[in-house]
């Protein structure tokens, strides 16, 4: 059985001052992928390439095993995207905007749209250009989810959104994922979103994927370890990520391997502590 919803192979694009890719990754059905990285690392570029808003130089994108290019419009029927594109129509109301977008989707659910507008307190009469950043983000989110997509692509959906609505968004994404047949890719800087929503973390840096891992693996393998002694072999061990000499602390990305090595070296572990996602992210994102 094919469990891959989206597969990206050899995706690349050259810009004047930036090279994106080559990027390869897969999105399994039923998973939430968190795309993390510094500003300008290529997260939005990746989304735009996926949706053909930018034309890739190289690469193949398959959706449920089918080449996306074969029927681009059909592919987009199954994709919901919230990525700051609505600003192109500042002069029309949210109602007009929703009408202009909903027309193109076979599965548009108007009741669901009404429900979300009420849930997020959206005044449809407002011109989009006059909305605050938070309201714009909420409208984008609503318009991306009401046609029951198979793949939801969210570019920093909660940036500038009030805390209450952030919580609602999180609930709605969890509900969206509930039946296990859909997937979400979310570009985010929010540790809270990564912690509560994602299954897989992909780290982009300078247009390239530098890390890709299962969130559960992070909880299992990443740890802060206090040891009785610091030897060269431990400091230079492949699974040692960071060392704090004063307090004899080691940050490891694979606790079982490190433990084995420490036993071999006759070094005692005095204390172990799991790392929080936010702490791990600091180590995953390379520093410029």
């Amino acid at each position, binding site marked *: 059985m094919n469990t891959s919803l989206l597969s990206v192979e050899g995706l690349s694009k050259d810009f004047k001052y930036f090279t994106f890719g080559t990027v390869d990754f897969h999105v399994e059905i039923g998973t939430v992928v968190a795309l993390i990285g510094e500003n300008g690392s290529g997260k939005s570029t990746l989304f*735009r390439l996926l949706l053909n*808003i930018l034309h890739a130089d190289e690469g193949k994108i398959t959706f449920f095993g089918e080449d996306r290019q074969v029927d681009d*419009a059909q592919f*987009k029927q199954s994709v919901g*995207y919230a990525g700051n*594109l609505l600003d192109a*129509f500042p002069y029309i109301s949210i109602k007009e905007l929703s009408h*202009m*977008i909903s027309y*193109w989707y076979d599965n548009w659910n108007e009741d669901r749209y009404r429900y979300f507008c009420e849930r997020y307190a959206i005044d449809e009469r407002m011109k989009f250009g006059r909305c605050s950043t938070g309201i714009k983000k909420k409208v984008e989110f609503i318009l991306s989810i009401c046609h029951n997509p198979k793949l939801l692509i969210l570019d920093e959906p909660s940036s500038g959104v009030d805390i209450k609505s952030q919580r609602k968004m999180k609930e709605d994404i969890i509900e969206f994922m509930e039946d296990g047949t859909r997937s979400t890719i979310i570009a985010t800087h929010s540790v809270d979103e990564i912690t509560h929503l994602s299954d897989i973390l992909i780290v982009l840096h300078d247009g390239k994927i530098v890390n890709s891992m299962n969130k559960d693996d992070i909880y299992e393998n990443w740890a802060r370890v206090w040891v009785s002694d610091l030897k060269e072999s431990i400091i230079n061990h492949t699974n040692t990520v960071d060392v704090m000499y004063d307090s004899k602390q080691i940050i490891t990305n694979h606790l079982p391997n490190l433990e084995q090595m420490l036993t071999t070296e006759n070094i005692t572990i005095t204390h172990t502590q799991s790392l929080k996602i936010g702490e791990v992210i600091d180590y995953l994102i390379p520093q410029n």
Partner: protein
Amino acid sequence: MIQQAMWLARKEIKQQFVPFLFTMAVTSFFATATTLQLSMAVEYIFGEGSTDYKSLFLDLIFLLITPSFAAIFMSSPYLTFRTIKEDPFSKRMALFRALPISIKTLALSRIIIMLITFLSLSIIFYLIISIGLTQLSPTYLTPMEWMSFMVFWFGYALAIGGYNSFIEYGTNGRVLYIVPTIILLSFFLFWYFFRRITDRSVVELSLLMIKEYQWIPAITFLLIGIAGCTFWYYLLSNRLRRRDYL
């Protein structure tokens, strides 16, 4: 596909209703100014009028302005230099590209917008001139000749006008400003040499041609116009398939 393209075109024109009205008003102004000059040109060529009319103005109107009737030229992207940086046409297309709309539908909708704009503005333009000319110089051009003249220039503008859609949606904000500037400069160069070689303006020559060949040049240019329109559709489709929208 046609139905969807029509729907999108109607929707966008409705959104641009106020700029569209302003464009109509400015077109009416152009038409009024043209009427007087054209009447003088007709009198000069076929009667005993003086040469003291603005042949450059007439050539500018018919060669450059009438193809611009294919664009809502009084809308904000044409009136502010912010367009160079913000590129509003591409941004709109980026949203459409993220929706399940095929490239063919998208390109066709652009051509339909162009045609609706072009037909509306051309009708206003030629209607005003027609009414004005019947008041000013009824004897020199027969209604048939006047019709041929209109169809001739309508066909020309239709053939060229599609470039507006291509520039708006196929390129970026910078090109939207650069290309018209290049065209304007090229026009003055062309006009200068044309005038020196033929001792006539382009509009004068077109009037003489219509007088002599009646419908033939008009029909020819109308066909060229239709072919041009089709050409711009394919060119735009091709471009939309390959371009970056942001």
